[in-house]
Each structure stands twice: as structure tokens, then as C-alpha cells.
């Protein structure tokens, strides 16, 4: 079970759209994941055991965990590449 942190400014809007997309992606590819949805400011306190962070807002810090911006899930531009990148990390 891989833990994926999905975060945005308020933890309700854009991160939910990204979280749904990642859940579907993992299901399609038979990867077991556990999504932790939170605010950007709460990433640090949820880091324990995380395999990947997908923020839909800007993140300046390095948390020592792979981080892939998820804005493409909102814009629809570059979704395929984004999904590939996420799968690369989740398959490791």
C-alpha cells in the first residue's frame, strides 16, 4: 500500500479533483494506494510513510519525498505525461 499525499490550499477543491483522478489511475493499473488529502500547510505532519506528494498549488519546500505537481488534472493539458510520471513513482 503506497501512501499518496494530495494537497492544495484549502484541502477541498482542486485536491479532490486530483485525488479522484489518482485513485482511478491506481485502480486501472492495479496499484494499491492510500490517499491522504490535506492542505499544503499540513503536508509536513502527514509525511510519515508517504511515497509521493501531488500538490495542485505551489510548494516551495523539499520534503524528501518525490513531488509531482498535479495542476494538469485541473487544466487537462498534459494529463497523459502526468499520469505516466505518477505511475513511475508508484511502481517503484
Amino acid at each position: 500500500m503506497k501512501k499518496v499525499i494530495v494537497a492544495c490550499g484549502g484541502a477541498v477543491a482542486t485536491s479532490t479533483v486530483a485525488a479522484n483522478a489518482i485513485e482511478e489511475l491506481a485502480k486501472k493499473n492495479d496499484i494499491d494506494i492510500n490517499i491522504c488529502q490535506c492542505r499544503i500547510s499540513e503536508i509536513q505532519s502527514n509525511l510519515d510513510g508517504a511515497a509521493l506528494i501531488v500538490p495542485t498549488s505551489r510548494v516551495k519546500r523539499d520534503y524528501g519525498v518525490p513531488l509531482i505537481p498535479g495542476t494538469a488534472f485541473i487544466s487537462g493539458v498534459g494529463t497523459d505525461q502526468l499520469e505516466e510520471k505518477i505511475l513511475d513513482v508508484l511502481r517503484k
Partner: protein
Amino acid sequence: MVWEELEENLIFPSVKAKTSDEVLEILGGALIKKGYVKNSYIQALKEREVEFPTGLDINGIGIAIPHTSAEHVNNTATCIGILKNPVLFYEMGTDNPVQVRIVFMLAVTDPHAHIDQLKQIILIIQDRNILHSLLGSNNPKEIIQTIKRKEQVLVVTQERED
């Protein structure tokens, strides 16, 4: 569905603004006037836009979806502004500059409604044809029709999938 609630007097086909703050003031002001949001809404939008920008570059068409937390909102609403001239916003997630032409401002009370509202908007903004017809629209009625046509197509497609 979400777009049933679209109101003509919350749709502005030709917003004249030079800065993103002005855009937030004009559209946010309309929401305040109609009672959908509290007076604190505009300031909250501005602060949030600085910390968490909401601009998106959809293959060269700049969009922004400013929103803020429910404490500044009385009732759910969507305010749409087509900007007469492009206005500088910053991109969600990257902070790259984006010249924005279309703004979807969200007023939300219920986080679940928020998601539906956002999903509807995402479907609209991912459709290049729709964006082009929005940019060419001259009046609120036309904008509402364009969006509702898209929604009907979506409903039909969903029913077929079911």
C-alpha cells in the same frame, strides 16, 4: 445541475480591468451586491490568490478560477467574466505568469457543492471550442447557452455510459 443556477446578472461578457485585483473587485463586487458573499470576500480572494494562484494556461487560453473559504460566503454561486483585455494572473502550482481572458469566480458554502461546481468548470475549460465561443460571446444569454449546451452533451454521454 450546477449550471441551472447561472444568473444573467452574474455574467460579464466584457470586463474592463488592468490588474487581477481589479478583476476580483469587479466580479466579487457583483457577488456582494447580490448578497451571495460577505463584504470580507474580496479581500479574502485577493489574499488567497497571492498565496495560492488559480490561473491556468489551457493551450494558450488563460483562465482563472478564484475562490476562497466558505466563511466569506452566504450562498453558492458562480460568477463569470470575459476580460476585454488579457490580465496578468499566476498559474496554479507553478507561479508562472498567465495572461487571463476568462474568469470563473466561485462562491461556495458546502465543500461537496464546491467539488461539483469545480468539476463542471473543469469540463468547460478543457473544451477548446467552448472557450473560443465564450471569448466570442457578446451577452450573458449567449454565454449561458454555450455552457448549457455543453452540459446537455455531457448528460447525454453519461446516460449512455450508464
